[in-house]
C-alpha cells in the first residue's frame, strides 16, 4: 500500500511536468516562433493524453486484478480537465484576447472548435462531480453521468482529427488507442453479462 501511495505521488508530479515545461519555455523564450500555437497544441495534446490515460485504469484493473489502481482514475481525469482549462484559456486569452464576437462565430461556424467546446462542456460536469461528497450524493446516477467520459474522448479525438491538414498519423494513433480502450469495455461487458456458451 505504501508503495502505491508513492506511485500516486509520482504520477501527480509527472502530470505537472507539461505545465512546468511550458512555463519554463515561456520564461526562456523557447516555445517556437509561434508560442501561442505551440501552447495550444501542447495543452490540447496533454488534455487528450490524460483523458485517454483515465480510460486505461479500468481495463488495467480488470486485467491485473490490482484494484488500488482505481485511486488513480480521479486524479488522471482531473488532470485532463486541468489541461483542457489551460487549453481553453490559451484560446480565450492568448489567441483571441477576449474577442468574444470572433470566438462565438468560431464556435458556431468551425466544427472543430464546436467539438472542442462540446468536449470541454462534457468534461466540466464530470470534474464538478468528482468529489467524494458528490459521488455519495449522486449514488447510481454518478456512474451514469460519468459514462459521458466515453463521449468526451470520442469528441476530443474527432476535434484533433479536424485540426490536422494532411498528416493524420497522430490523430489516427489516438483513434486506435481509444477504440481499443472502448472495445475492451464492450468485450468485457459482453463476456460478463452473457452466459458462457462453452
Amino acid at each position: 500500500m505504501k508503495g502505491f501511495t508513492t506511485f500516486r505521488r509520482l504520477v501527480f508530479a509527472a502530470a505537472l511536468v507539461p505545465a512546468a515545461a511550458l512555463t519554463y519555455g515561456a520564461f526562456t523564450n523557447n516555445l517556437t516562433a509561434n508560442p501561442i500555437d505551440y501552447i495550444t497544441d501542447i495543452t490540447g495534446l496533454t488534455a487528450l493524453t490524460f483523458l485517454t490515460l483515465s480510460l486505461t485504469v479500468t481495463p488495467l484493473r480488470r486485467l491485473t486484478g490490482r484494484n488500488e489502481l482505481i485511486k488513480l482514475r480521479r486524479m488522471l481525469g482531473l488532470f485532463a480537465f486541468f489541461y483542457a482549462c489551460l487549453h481553453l484559456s490559451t484560446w480565450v486569452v492568448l489567441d483571441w484576447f477576449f474577442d468574444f464576437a470572433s470566438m462565438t462565430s468560431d464556435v458556431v461556424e468551425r466544427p472543430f472548435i464546436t467539438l472542442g467546446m462540446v468536449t470541454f462542456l462534457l468534461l466540466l460536469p464530470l470534474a464538478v462531480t468528482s468529489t467524494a461528497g458528490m459521488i455519495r450524493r449522486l449514488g447510481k446516477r454518478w456512474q451514469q453521468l460519468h459514462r459521458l467520459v466515453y463521449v468526451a474522448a470520442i469528441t476530443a479525438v474527432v476535434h484533433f482529427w479536424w485540426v490536422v491538414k494532411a498528416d493524420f498519423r497522430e490523430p489516427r494513433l489516438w483513434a486506435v488507442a481509444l477504440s481499443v480502450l472502448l472495445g475492451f469495455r464492450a468485450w468485457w461487458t459482453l463476456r460478463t453479462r452473457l452466459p458462457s456458451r462453452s
Partner: protein
Amino acid sequence: MLIRKPTDIPFSEVTPQSLYLRRREFFQAAASGALAAATVLAPRGAGAQTGPKLPNVRKTPYGQGERLNSYADVTGYNNFYEFGTGKEDPAANAKDFTGRPWTIKVDGRVKNAGDHDIDSFIKPYALEERIYRLRCVEGWSMVIPWVGIPLADVINRLEPEPGARFVEFTTLNDARRMPGLNVPVLRWPYVEGLRMDEAMNPLSILAVGVYGEALPGQNGAPIRLVVPWKYGFKSTKSIVRIRFTDSEPRNSWQVSAPREYGFYANVNPEVDHPRWSQATERRLGEFRRRPTEMFNGYGDQVARMYAGMDLRKNF
C-alpha cells in the same frame, strides 16, 4: 504599377538588431499577463546568420519599412513536409542538405527545354533583395528579406511557346535527402503551378537566398518560387523542374483536399478555409491578431489579373 519608393538603405541597416528582440517584448507582455511573474527572458538561442553573404545583391524598394522577422524565425519555423510535418522538423532534418550540384529540368511548351545546372541557370540575372510578407494558409505570417531573380526574366529567356498558358514547378523527390518523403502525407513529388500572367507578374521571383545568404535547406535550397500575394504553399521550394503547359497544373494540396485548397490560393480575408477563418492572421512575434489584407496587401500589383473572376469559386 509598382509602388516605387527611392531607397538607399544599406542591407545592414534593414535588419536592426532590435527586431530580433521583438519576441522578447512579446513574451514579456504575454508572460507577465498570463503568468503574472517577473520575467527573465533569454533570447532564442541558435539562428544567428553564419553563412557567407551572397555577392552583389541589389536593393529594391519592396517592403521597405516593414519589420522583419528574425533570421531564427525565418529559418526555424517552416512548413516543408518533405522534411517532416512539424514546424521545427525542416530545420532539424535539412541540416546537411546541400543545393549543389543541382539540375533544373525545363520542359513542355518551351524553346529552351533541357537540363540546366543551377549556377548557369541563375548566372545571367542580377540578384535583388525583395522584402515580402508571407502569409501561411494556416493563419500566421512573417516578413522575409528574400534574395532572388524576377521570374519573368527567367521565363523570357527560356522562351515559352505560344501554347504555354501555365507554368508548373516540381520539388525534389529524393527520400534519401528528404526524410519526410517516406511518409505519404501528400502526393509526391510536390507540384505547384501558376497561370502565365501570374508567373510574369513583377512580384514573382525565384529566390536563391534569404537575409543576404544562400537559402538554407529548410527554406527551399537552392532555388524556390516566391509569390507573396498567395498562400505560402504556392511558393514551391527546392525546384527541380519547370514545365510549360497548356492546362492548369494539379497542385499537390488541391489533389490532397480539393474542397480546401484550390489552384489560385490567393490570400483573401473574405474566403475562409472550410475549417477556419482567413479574416485575421498572427504575424509571428506579435501578440494580437491582425486583419488579413486582400492579396496579402499586394492588390495594387496583382488585383487586375483576377478582374471579373469569382474568387470564391477560384479559391
